[in-house]
């Protein structure tokens, strides 16, 4: 049995499941972080038994797991605390219950990791960007010079240096829709650091990440699964709308996205980096400058690979499905 943890709206999950269904007779149980289920859960020593709605399974049934999206998937196991008379106590108890929940989750993940093939990162979120940049340099990859500061004067000196800097979120950027059916969304993108950005900012500001702008020939999006790499080059430079951040789509003239052959030494370094971050799948964002130098920007363990896979015919969905059914056939 293959266990998939995801969100209800994730299209890539459906595409991978269709491949699993096409390639094997494996039973698939998909649990969405944003849906409520009736859950029965017993963990004893090194085993567990779970029932999620109609699907009941034990640890020995699970051959492979795909941690695609979401944090912990068994919502509502713990009651929420309601004590309107005692808000401080309620907050404290809620915090305690959250800790209980997290401990349970970590143990559950650990059991899965020890007994079955787990694809994806357990905490479900991106590793610390600044840590990634440090590790990247350790394995010999170039990164654009950066600094973090809460001083406006620091930012002003960067502007004055004339080198060109961008600023972006240190953690995951904001990516939020009002409601799933509305078109109103809020996004943070990578923005160029210009004098107008600092207008009205006090001398002490919120600590901000600044990164030297690298004049790129093109961007790279590198999907990896274990030691297999699929790279695509994105040509966004000719279009002012997408020059700094390619996610600002130009729908009239979408950027060119074409397959790219990574130099073996870059691939080897990315492999080392993935290993040092304990990631077995995800995608790297890189840029290549006019002199052919490669820079690592960040890694995203749960990115949307669907559009790249389709446009460059990379068959990533099939790769993932094959990885997930591999253990199944041997049973």
């Amino acid at each position: 049995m293959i266990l998939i943890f995801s969100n209800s709206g994730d299209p890539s999950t459906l595409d991978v499941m269709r491949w699993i269904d096409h390639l094997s007779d494996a039973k698939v149980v998909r649990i969405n972080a944003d849906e409520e289920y009736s859950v029965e859960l017993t963990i004893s020593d090194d085993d567990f038994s779970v029932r999620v709605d109609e699907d009941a399974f034990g640890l020995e049934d699970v051959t492979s797991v795909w941690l695609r999206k979401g944090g912990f998937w068994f919502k509502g196991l713990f009651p929420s605390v309601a004590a309107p008379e005692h808000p401080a106590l309620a907050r404290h108890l809620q915090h305690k219950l959250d800790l209980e929940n997290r401990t349970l989750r970590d143990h559950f993940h650990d059991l899965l990791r020890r007994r079955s093939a787990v694809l994806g990162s357990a905490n479900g979120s991106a590793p610390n960007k600044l840590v990634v940049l440090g590790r990247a340099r350790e394995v010999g990859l170039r990164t654009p010079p950066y600094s973090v500061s809460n001083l406006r004067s620091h930012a002003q000196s960067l502007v004055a240096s004339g080198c060109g800097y961008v600023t972006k979120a240190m953690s995951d950027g904001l990516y939020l829709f009002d409601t799933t059916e509305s078109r109103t969304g809020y996004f943070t993108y990578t923005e160029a650091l210009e004098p107008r950005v600092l207008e009205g900012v006090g001398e002490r500001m919120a600590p901000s990440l600044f990164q030297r702008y690298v004049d790129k020939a093109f961007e790279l999006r590198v999907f990896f699964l274990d030691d297999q790499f699929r790279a695509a080059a994105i040509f966004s430079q000719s279009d002012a709308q997408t020059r700094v951040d390619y996610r600002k789509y130009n729908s009239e003239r979408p950027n060119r996205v074409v397959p790219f052959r990574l130099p073996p030494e870059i691939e080897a370094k990315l492999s080392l980096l993935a290993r040092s971050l304990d990631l077995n799948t995800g995608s790297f964002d890189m840029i290549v400058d006019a002199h052919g130098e490669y820079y690592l920007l960040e890694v995203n363990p749960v990115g949307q690979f669907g559009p790249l896979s389709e446009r460059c015919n990379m068959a990533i969905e099939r790769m993932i499905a094959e990885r997930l059914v591999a253990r199944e056939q041997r049973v």
Partner: protein
Amino acid sequence: MDSTQLLRDRRDEYVFLFSDCVPVEGAAASAIYDLTRKHISTFPSAYFPFFALFRARRLGEIVDALSPEEHDDFVAFLDFLLANEYVAVVADAAAFPEISRAWDAPCAIHNAIVDVRGQHHDYRKIVAELSGLGCQHLQVRGYAGVFGLAELDELARLCRGSSIQTLEAILAHEPGRSDDDYVAVVGAHRLITGLTVHSAPQERRLAVDYGARGDAATLLTLEISMTVKPLESALDCGQIGKRQLLPPTTPTFNELRQFSGCLNRKLAIDERGEVRNCPAMRGSFGDHRAVSLAQVVADEAFRRVWAARNDEIEVCRDCPYRYACTGCRALLADPAVEDSKPLKCGYDPYTDTWADWQTRAGAAAALAHYQARVHLPIVRG
């Protein structure tokens, strides 16, 4: 960057045609398929050999070998390629491989058509077996009132929880039905992605907004189209014009290079309940009640026509639109010739002109041939 500047400053570099822009050679006109921007542009085929030169020679070498008259044409062509952002000038294009030409899909059957005229089929069996084959899209065509709105509602219910993601219907107008009835059924099933009502009293469009308000409504609205035109038989299908060409994408382009755009991974149940590759094609694979659809699909004879790619069809093999055209293998310009081009296409690749197919010599006779051969009488009204 314009061509004059390039010819002066970048003579030692190569013109790189982005790998998502694929040249397709035709007789009089050739095309570039822009797979990212989903657009085809055409140009005189005389320019086609430049693409091979671009890969082999530096810009300066190409230009130096041209005569003065050729030079101006070349500059014009280069400007056309630059204006559409089909090319970049690079020192080395070796790091940019072609997009893989492989094609596959996670299903044994991708789409199916069910025709209904005088009798019902076993819809429950059809949906269950199609789901087992991974079928994603289902179209149902009701020629007469037997398959109406109530039946569509029931079919949509059957499709829930199956592999079928979209259901499209063409139904005959039912006099007793109000607009609200149509809107209610379509609005109740997100699976229904299109409804056309034929033989209607007037041309009209009805909006379905799924109860959404404001911005969301404009995003979700689906239109039911009512047309006075009748749908008479499966022979009404197969029109090929510029508007019918598929906007090119990587998967469709790759599929059409290897397979028939219309028949590949398709299955049809005709109005008598027979399993076919297409309702208008000869060759029945048995009554759907008596055979298993999985067994039919496993049969080599059933899958044979899937490989009827445009590259192997007369005339079409010289057409620059051949990887964007689903073609038709049921109604041929010359019914006696197996690889004859589709009857209802008016494009002539040797002159690069579109005309009305009905004006072509022999078109009326070919159509009459199919009408006489139809496997059952066409019941009108």
